[in-house]
């Protein structure tokens, strides 16, 4: 079986559940295996879920503005846990306030995310990118 596994979750103390639920649905429809951790997910939870399911990618959502603080160190922890080079996306309303997206992107790329998405990104965009990055059609 060629099914790729995605870990999905909303990080930190963030409870925005709507987008998460829709992303799960969309990724499943697109043929991915989805492990959805829901909202209020700690960094450790992403990592252990990824290890347990031999996941291909971790998709972090942050809507409430504290993403900047919540996401720091996740890449390092992944490496330490043996998830070297695992594909990592992040999206949502990543910072507090309306900010120039390019700067936000740089900030999260520097934290080790492979792709960073602006507010309101459609699931299809992420699906196309996943297919490309994971080498599925």
């Amino acid at each position, binding site marked *: 079986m060629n099914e790729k596994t995605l870990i999905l979750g909303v990080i*930190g*103390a*963030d*409870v925005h*559940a*709507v987008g998460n*639920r*829709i992303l799960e*649905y969309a990724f499943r429809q697109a043929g991915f295996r989805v492990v959805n951790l*829901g*909202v*209020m997910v700690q960094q450790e939870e992403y990592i252990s879920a990824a290890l347990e399911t031999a996941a291909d990618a971790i998709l972090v959502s942050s809507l*409430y*503005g*504290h993403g*900047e*603080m919540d996401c720091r160190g996740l890449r390092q922890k992944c490496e330490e846990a043996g998830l070297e080079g695992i594909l990592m996306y992040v999206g949502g*309303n990543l*910072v*507090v*306030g*309306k*900010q120039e997206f390019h700067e936000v992107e740089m900030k999260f790329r520097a934290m080790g995310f492979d792709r960073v998405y602006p*507010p*309101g990104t459609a699931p299809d965009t992420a699906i196309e990118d996943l297919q490309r990055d994971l080498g599925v059609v």
Partner: protein
Amino acid sequence: MNLENKKLELDAFRSTRQDVLKQWPTGRDVDFEEAVSYQKRIPAGKRFNGKLAEAVEKGITLIQPRAGVALPQEHIRLLRYLETEGEADLLPTTIDSYTRHNRYEEAEKGIRESRTEGRSLLNGFPAVNHGVAICREVTESVSLPVQVRHGTPDARLLAEITIAGGFTSYEGGGISYNIPYSKNISLERTLLDWQYVDRLMGLYEEAGVSINREPFGPLTGTLVPPCISHSVAILESLLAAEQGVKNLTVGYGQCGNLLQDVAAIRSLKSLTREYLTRFGYGDVTVTTVFHQWMGGFPQDEAKAFGVISWGAAAATLAGATKVIVKTPHEALGVPTMEANAQGLRATKQVTAMLRDQRLQRTPELIGEMEMIAAETRCILDRTLELGEGDWAKGTVRAFQAGIIDIPFAPSRSNAGKALPARDNTGAIRFLDFGALPFDEDIMAFHRDKIEDRAKKEGRAASFQMVIDDVYAIGKGFLVGRPKQNG
């Protein structure tokens, strides 16, 4: 835990209080007697209850923003700006998400980083960390009443500090600040904790200080049918009233269909009064709050102004006592103070222009009100039954059984089986009832409405319809029609 809907004994309350005030060092500055005399010195014009009563008398709709930043001086500047440049009638202090989850250490870190970076890294004002004195500085530096707006499941310490700090209204409730705002916290726990909060307000009330309480109406803000939010608002009103709260503002988040929105605000007020009176709390004052669309917003600011203004119009045509205002930055991030004031001024223009207009009572409007009332009664009556006459116990059991079911809520205590979708006019109906305790007439009504839409769109009703509706307003529509029907 021994949850029942009974006024907390003073002894039990006091012993809990000792623990609560120890949750963070700033707790020790709370002195109830001193706080009461402080509150008594707040002039009438700066109290929520007075200002709301005045609005009811004049028949106008007040406007109130959401706003909060990490640092006190910035927060004061923000509130002052919203008062003068935003022409707000009532002010808020929105609390940050770490505080909401009692993560005061993280909030402290957020404060520190905000100081170094020179911008707020917190999405609200961490009132607990700042403590009583700074709260007083905040409430004293504006000339309007200020309310605490948050989303905190355990909001006991926050209540102690902010009310001692001069705030005159407190948002939230054991249901409305749990189910949409947390994942793992048990409902018993938050109901107990909110009994504490309400008892505290009751004690202030008994000491001659009236604090306004506002159950959080919109819940998840996303396609919540009126009967669900009404049920929660009424339950929280009953629970608060039992603890001695005398001044309640019940809320509702705009759906977007004018008829349903007006029916919702009007039935919310009459149903809340009805239940309060029926259960022995006839002396409680009830006002209403209408929230401008609480779900996903369009990113374009001009379009956001359209959504904001339409919310202002619906609130006024419905006759709500106040309206909570969104901003043109809604889809993107916590607004700048300028954007916040813009949302307020657009709203002010509309509420003032429409102040002498109300939507007429038509058979359709009455029908919609009766439907909401019938649905709400089904839910509440079954809740009371499950609770064997106890509203608090009933609430817990009703959620377990899916008798109350809030769409899109993150909480494990929520069944998450019921699914909403819009009908052909944009009113929110049920596509799936889950375990909602409706009678056959009500179910047939919803089925017909959804069926009509499915027919018009040439597709079966499904989760895709729900998703389309979730996105619709952000994309410029109310009903999420498939493309070809555009």
